[in-house]
């Protein structure tokens, strides 16, 4: 049975007075990979960031409507945003490991959650690195600076860092856009594995990527959700002409 993990209802988002998202209503199922596609500036990243309230960091953002995760509207007044972000983790477009060792990068999340026991931390770090499919590459140099890793490794480390706090939802904002094809393949493989335990929402510019890894695909254009359906349907037989044009490369 498919459970809806995230459910937005009539959601609008404004940057100052400019409307960036126009009436988005979408149901994102649990433990599936949902991909957002669309041309640059169409609002898909903005929408992704509003799912764990990262947009709060930007001045002048105003949101109307509801974003419901597990039956709770996360834009309610007394929501604890810090705890929300533990539940809804995020991986960014540009890999952004901290200027710390590999170990410290992954252990940071558990540590701020109050885990002090060294053996327990070791266990979590190993688990997270294994889940992010990078353990074999870094297990001998956990004490080295994370900034010495390659781009693809850094991105997988960032995924491991997100997994280490054991979220339920992982948001990924073009996680492979800055990587070479080999690293991209590894990340994609990883995403498919991760959906067993996590609900994954991914923004991508690469339509083949969306086709390869996602279960559902949403097409955004100019701040509106044009079409949302099973990935197979979107890529083979879309309902809307705009979607078809975009997928076949006639615009965007």
């Amino acid at each position: 049975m498919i459970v809806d993990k995230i459910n937005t209802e009539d959601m609008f988002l404004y940057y100052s007075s400019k409307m960036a998202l126009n009436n988005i209503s979408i149901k994102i199922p649990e433990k599936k990979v949902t991909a957002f596609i669309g041309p640059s500036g169409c609002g898909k990243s903005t929408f992704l960031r509003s799912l764990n309230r990262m947009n709060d960091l930007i001045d002048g953002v105003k949101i109307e409507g509801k974003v419901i995760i597990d039956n709770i509207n996360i834009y309610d007044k007394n929501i604890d945003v810090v705890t929300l972000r533990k539940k809804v983790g995020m991986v960014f477009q540009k890999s952004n490991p901290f200027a710390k060792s590999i170990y410290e990068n992954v252990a940071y999340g558990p540590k701020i959650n109050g885990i002090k026991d060294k053996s327990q931390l070791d266990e979590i770090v190993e688990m997270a690195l294994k889940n992010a499919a990078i353990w074999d590459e870094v297990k001998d140099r956990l004490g080295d600076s994370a900034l010495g890793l390659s781009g693809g490794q850094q991105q997988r480390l960032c995924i491991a860092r997100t997994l280490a706090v054991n979220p339920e939802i992982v948001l990924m904002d073009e996680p492979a856009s800055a990587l070479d094809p080999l690293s991209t393949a590894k990340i994609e493989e990883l995403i498919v594995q991760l959906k067993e335990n996590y609900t994954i929402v991914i923004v991508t510019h690469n339509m083949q990527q969306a086709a390869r890894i996602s279960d559902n695909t949403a097409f955004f254009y100019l701040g509106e959700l044009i079409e949302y359906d099973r990935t197979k349907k979107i890529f083979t037989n879309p309902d809307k002409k705009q979607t078809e044009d975009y997928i076949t490369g006639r615009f965007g």
Partner: protein
Amino acid sequence: MTKEPSKAPTSGKLTAASSEPVRFDITRKKFRIADYVAEKIIKGVAFLSITIIVLIFFFVFREAFPIFSISKEIKKSTTENVVQDVQETYGEVTDQPAKEENQETYGAVTDSSQVQEQYGVQTNDTASIEDASDKAYTVSAGSGFDDNQSAIKTLLTKDWVPVSDKPRYGILALIVGTFKITLISLLFAAPIAILAALYTAVFANRKMKEIIKPTIELLAGFPSVVIGFFALMVMATFLQEIFHYETRLNSFVGGIAMGIAAIPIIFTITEDALTAVPKSFYEASLAIGASKWQTAFFVILPAATPGIFAAILLGIGRVFGETMIALMATGNAAQMDLNPFTSVRTLAATIGAEMAEVVFGDTHYNVLFLIGSLLFIFTFIINAIAEFYVKGKLMKRIQGK
């Protein structure tokens, strides 16, 4: 022979091209006079500034050098200088009989600059001059006393008594005093400045930031004499009422006052370093459920360590060379202990306080320049540590190279 025909067309083509007006002639180097002059001027200015620094360095060391020289020639020339100096002084200061008497004194005392130095201090009172010359006799008769050598011997003691029958130039108390006051001011200034910078860089909204930063930076240009005066008149009394210590002006008061002078410097550079931390660190930390404070303390602050380190070292440099506040607020007594509530005398303040009463070419004069050299060397060491530590260790750790 096969080469000839292949060459000919090329040259033919070249001549053909040059007969027509050429739009981009890249075959000849042009001499650009404006570029040349600008480059030379900039180069000249750069080297001039370096030269000036080197010359100052050289001069300060040269003036400090005679203390260590025990070779007779230098000693002799120093003595001659001294004699001339003293005679000049006397000409101005006293009446004829006194002058004669002192010239006699000089005939007898071969090498006693401390006498002449004392003369510098005690002005046109003839009686006291006679007094002093009497003492000079006894000293010279007693030991055949070598000025420079005795100065070196006393250099590593803690008694700083440069104006006396038996001058002692123990700079140990001055060094300890300087370090003590530097430590106190840093313990006061660094936490305040760094926390203020952290607030400004991470927590304050844009409007607040635009108010706070220029305001604190304004304080950096505040004349230290004003801070010193404030410390001397207001702060010293106020702090004494709180802490009930014995001496009103002491290293604690001086340290706090110097800390006030150092705060803007540490603040500005720390703030810049914190702002330079990539925003992605901040986002990444928040995205895994860290609070703002956790992010600030465990991610942003560590990432800015090299900059903060540099800021603190610049603060040290400021405190180290600070003269006016030291003169006004520290009590200026060369005591050597680790009690923060006793008076101290710093290296810089010693030069500031005694430059007016020292006689040119005298041992005391040389020792003051030695102190100047020490300040130079300490500053140099601090900068070197900053350079090597920041570039070598911290950068390696943080950038993973």
